[in-house]
């Protein structure tokens, strides 16, 4: 687990936003602890209106060491591995298309150098021909030489197939006392795979997915079965015991194209009768791994796995200390308005805004009408016209919603400045004030919108005003990078009308994605905000307790503050909205994040 190519890359991966667009079916790390790497990606097709059950599965296969040993076998198994991963996610190999990426040394006139891409392409050709899958695209880069150094003779295979979202399988173990089977891909003396067995396994497993028989799957990659099993175990802290009948040495060999499957014991008893299917062991309630009488805790394994890259790509920042729990503020605020028809939500789009589609869809699902407007600022005249039009459209709305994104790229050096500067324009400040305090309107800011509301002074003060040196603000996460993952948040105040259908104490699992999400305020301000019920939501651990533990309060916000409201509670800002559709399985991996 501690070798470089098997080591956890979570600290690298979590700086990439994995939920924007609200299409994500599988998060990059599965399980309630978000620790099982998902080898591939699954997203719903981006239909603009309505919902879809059609998703794309996209995977890749590659092993640089294998490619160096034999570019032919490297390419052939790259194709096989990309298909195996796709099948392990629930896909159908018969619907697969491929695209290839080649990266080789500069060939010049060196005949042996030319032999490398020839060899690799022939390997990919054989795999395509036998598997009846087509690489319908590819790119080549033939300049991987520096002085006398050359890159590995690289062919990366990418596989894609559409699939129904109900058939998607995540790789983390789901329950104790399940059987884990190996659907093995045997090789001959030339290290050529038994293609017929591979096809049979793929087809059998896909049918089993359709029949709902499979709980988790993982294609065996670098590190062999051992690494795969450990990674499957980390996500939910479910342990594993290797069966006495399984040869220990076999745990560590490479076996591209083989797939590990978690299923119930009764089903497993039937399936092991198939050719090249064997029992590897069973899942256990105890969070450790047992092989040949030796037991190692999952924690030790995970520490070893997370260590190699921890200084290059830190996974966690240091946790603050102190008690973050707040008493619940359970008094609902006054109802602010008489009934009117469908509420109209105005959503401004600035350069860099990127959550407007998701936000509008969420409001529309909740029954609102949305009015999305793009700010035009190519010339001062465009800008003036645009501001006037914006003011007019705000005047027709009951809600203004500032969506997420990176307005002006979070520049100059700080997020939300662009939107804040825009709404400090007297025409727009007045429109905002008028909406909130003359017409009983509401404001909401999420993500970049949160930052904008804070930087306008609208939060926590309730009005647009200059920032002071001691104003609460949002600044860079202590880990020094963007953070994208799921967090637990608890509603701790229901004073705002935004929470009229929540109960104080409700916990939601939501996606966060931000580089500047750390809420800071002085102890006096925090006390005052809490006393007035303005702290709306907090980061909590899996037991529902507000915390400074950076596993659960990843940006290290003061008092675990995740969302706040204004004194009159008309403005509310937070990170991403709770998930609108229920998780398909008990694992967090399967949250269809309708984050907005």
């Amino acid at each position, binding site marked *: *687990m501690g070798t470089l190519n098997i080591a956890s890359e979570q600290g690298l991966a979590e*700086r990439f*936003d994995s939920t*924007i667009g609200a299409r*994500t079916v599988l998060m*990059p790390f599965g399980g309630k602890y978000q620790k099982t790497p*998902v080898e*591939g990606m699954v*997203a719903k097709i981006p239909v603009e209106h309505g919902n879809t*059950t*059609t998703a794309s599965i*996209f995977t*890749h296969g590659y092993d*640089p060491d294998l490619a160096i040993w*034999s570019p*032919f076998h490297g390419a052939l198994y790259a194709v096989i591995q990309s298909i195996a991963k796709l099948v392990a996610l629930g896909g159908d190999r018969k619907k697969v298309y491929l695209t290839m*990426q080649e990266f080789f040394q500069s*060939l010049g006139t060196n*005949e042996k150098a*030319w032999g490398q891409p*020839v*060899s690799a392409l022939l390997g*990919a*050709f*054989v795999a395509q*021909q036998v598997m009846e899958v*087509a690489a*319908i695209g590819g*790119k*080549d880069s*033939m*300049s991987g*030489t*520096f*002085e006398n150094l*050359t890159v590995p003779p690289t062919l*990366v295979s*990418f596989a894609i197939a*559409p699939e129904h979202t109900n058939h998607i399988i995540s790789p983390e173990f789901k329950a104790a006392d399940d059987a884990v089977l190996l659907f093995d891909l045997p090789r001959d003396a030339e290290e050529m795979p038994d293609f017929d067995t591979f096809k049979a396994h793929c087809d059998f497993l896909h049918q089993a997915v359709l029949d709902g028989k499979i709980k988790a799957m993982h294609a065996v990659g670098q590190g062999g079965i051992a690494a795969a099993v450990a990674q499957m175990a980390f996500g939910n802290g479910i342990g594993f015991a290797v069966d006495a009948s399984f040869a220990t040495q076999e745990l560590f060999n490479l076996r591209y194209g083989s797939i590990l499957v978690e299923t119930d014991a009764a089903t497993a008893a039937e399936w092991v009768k198939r050719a090249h299917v064997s029992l590897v062991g069973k899942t256990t309630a105890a969070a450790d791994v047992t092989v040949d009488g030796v037991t190692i805790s999952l924690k030790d394994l995970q520490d*070893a796995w997370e260590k190699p*890259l921890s*200084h*290059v790509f830190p996974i966690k920042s240091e946790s603050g200390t102190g008690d973050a729990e707040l008493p619940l503020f359970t008094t609902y605020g006054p109802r602010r308005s008489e009934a009117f028809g469908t509420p109209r939500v105005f959503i401004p789009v600035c*350069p860099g805004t*990127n959550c407007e589609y998701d936000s509008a869809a969420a409001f529309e699902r909740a029954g609102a009408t949305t009015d999305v407007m*793009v700010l*035009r600022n190519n010339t*001062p005249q465009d*800008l003036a016209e645009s501001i006037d039009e914006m003011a007019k459209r705000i005047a027709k709305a009951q809600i203004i919603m500032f969506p997420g*994104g990176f307005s*002006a*790229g979070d520049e*100059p*050096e700080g997020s939300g*400045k662009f939107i*804040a500067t825009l709404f*400090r324009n007297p025409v727009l400040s007045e429109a905002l004030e008028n909406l909130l305090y003359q017409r009983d309107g509401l404001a909401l800011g999420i993500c970049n919108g949160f930052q904008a509301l804070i930087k306008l002074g609208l939060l926590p003060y309730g009005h647009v005003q200059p920032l002071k040196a001691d*104003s609460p603000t949002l600044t860079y996460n202590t880990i020094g990078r*963007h953070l994208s993952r799921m967090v637990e948040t608890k509603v701790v105040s229901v004073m705002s009308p935004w929470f009229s259908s929540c109960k104080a104490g409700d916990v939601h699992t939501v996606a966060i994605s931000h580089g500047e999400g750390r809420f*800071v305020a002085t102890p006096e301000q925090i006390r005052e905000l809490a006393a007035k019920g303005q702290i709306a939501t907090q980061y909590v651990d899996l037991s529902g307790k507000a915390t400074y533990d950076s596993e659960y309060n990843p940006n290290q916000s003061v008092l675990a503050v995740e969302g706040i409201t204004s004194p009159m509670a008309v403005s509310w800002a937070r990170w991403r909205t709770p998930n609108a559709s229920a998780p398909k399985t008990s694992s967090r991996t399967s949250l269809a994040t309708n984050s907005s």
Partner: protein
Amino acid sequence: MQSIRRLYVAKNGVFADEAKRLLTDLQENLLIKGLTDIHIYHRYDVSGLDDAAFEAAKNMIFSEPPVDAVYDELPVGKDDTVLAVEYLPGQYDQRADSAMQCLQMLTMKNDSLVRTAQVLVLSGSLSADDVAAIKHYCINPVEAREASLDPVSTLEMPWEKPADVPVIDGFDAMDDAALKELSAHMGLAMSFDDLKFVQTYFRDEEKRNPTVTEIRVIDTYWSDHCRHTTFMTELTDVSFENGTFTAPIQRAYESYKTTRENLNRKKPQTLMDMATIAVKELKAAGKLDNLDESEEINACTIIIPVDVDGVEEEWLLLFKNETHNHPTEIEPFGGAATCLGGCIRDPLSGRSYVYQAMRVTGAGDPRQSVKDTLVGKLPQRKLTTGAAKGYSSYGNQIGLATGEVKEYYNPGFIAKRMEIGAVLGAAPRNNVVREEPLPGDIIILLGGKTGRDGCGGATGSSKKHTVESLETCGAEVQKGNALTERKIQRLFRRHEVTVLIKRCNDFGAGGVSVAIGELTDGLDINLDKVPKKYEGLDGTELAISESQERMAVVVAPEHVDEFMKYAAEENLEATIVAVATDTKRLVMHWRDQNVVNITRAFLDTNGVTQHRKAVVVAPEDKDFFKLRKSKTSPRPGSIPWVP
């Protein structure tokens, strides 16, 4: 004379995490023992503001009072070392650009200019070698330089009126030696045989000497990047060393040749043929019926049924992978950012909405000590962290979910980093109209402006990397502008817009010459219309400079106004730059000069076919798939789970 004000902004004590991280980085990775503290100041030079606006901007735009302090003078102790770093002139600076957009909202005028620099104040006892090492570590000369600490007198980019594009006199009569000298002098990527072929064309067909622009355009068109020169090279002989593991390779080659015979293929054996023959075979067997093929080359496309609220619709699913190995190797942030940007543009130009990305990379061991870095290379740690920052910054800004990030480590990648982006896009099939352009159709350029930073991307990335690359590739580095590409994404998600587009091409490598040049056979391009980032670009630069966030679209003349209106609604610049003609010639005007006028037929030859032989080496005779015993050999009585 304009008044230029300067201010410095720094994070207050507890918020100065970036400075703390840099201090640790320099102490631990660069082993600068005498360094005790670092302060980072963002320096802004600002013109065009009156006193009131400047004061307002200080706390609204340039700083945030809760976390920042603003200084008029740089606070420096007497023993401190000051190092100021700025982008090379012409490099896109998002910080300055955003500041100017904010200032425009403050003043409702667009006459203020901003230039930025980062100033490091280093405390402690530093030797001259320490300072040199820090400079070397913190300044990548392909994108940045040490900035002067003196006040500046202007923020305008100095520029000179460019001279006319020269004609290469005597080209038609050059002998081999003279041609070779010309090729070396111009740094051409094309082969010598190609250049001779060009000479023949101009001498015999055009009966004139070429312009410099024409040579550059042809060099770009035929580059490995744009035309896969290596993949199109004819393999005249393929042989195999003997061995257990070469036997299946040899059989694969026989099978390839049989497939060629079955398909009756007469084209020469090439890498491209080997890469694509499986598709041809499967297609011939009728097994690829949901493939979407067209004259347009945007991305791989298949037709899939999509359920929308229970109703099945026909959609196009597009996918595309791309590398930016060379740009990322020399400037990791910008190279990786534009890897993703460029990758998105392909399915985007196919009028699909790009919704997910994967990133697959290859690096040397990032834990390797910085001092062991090869001369002419950036440290692996810097490469991998910088590239991660660049790619994620672009994806996060444009709002594209990155679903899988995987980095492979192998010492071979010290030769050159591997930076692959792969993206997925989709669109309702009825959004995508594909029509043959007609004479008189209008070509509209959409999105970003052209600068000098995009010159030579296609030819440069196809060249071998040598020790000198870091010093001389300055013009090949680009910064991405995700915000502009996002606007194009919004525009191309609109059905009423995409149905106006007959054909579309993105501005990847090759700039106007390739992006517009590929749209149809006959084109008349007016380079004077191409929007520029700054003045002083000549005809050649306008023709070949690639840029990250531009598209060229073909629309019928009667649809131009409507298309322009939609672009304006999305805050996008759109400019008519060319018209389709019936001449089958690629023509470009600049000022009153015809800088390019060549036939399509000649361009389409893709130069002279090269010939090579290949020898497949036998893989080492060992059991590769068994547990490798090198580092992870199990201790007796234990198992190798934990090292």
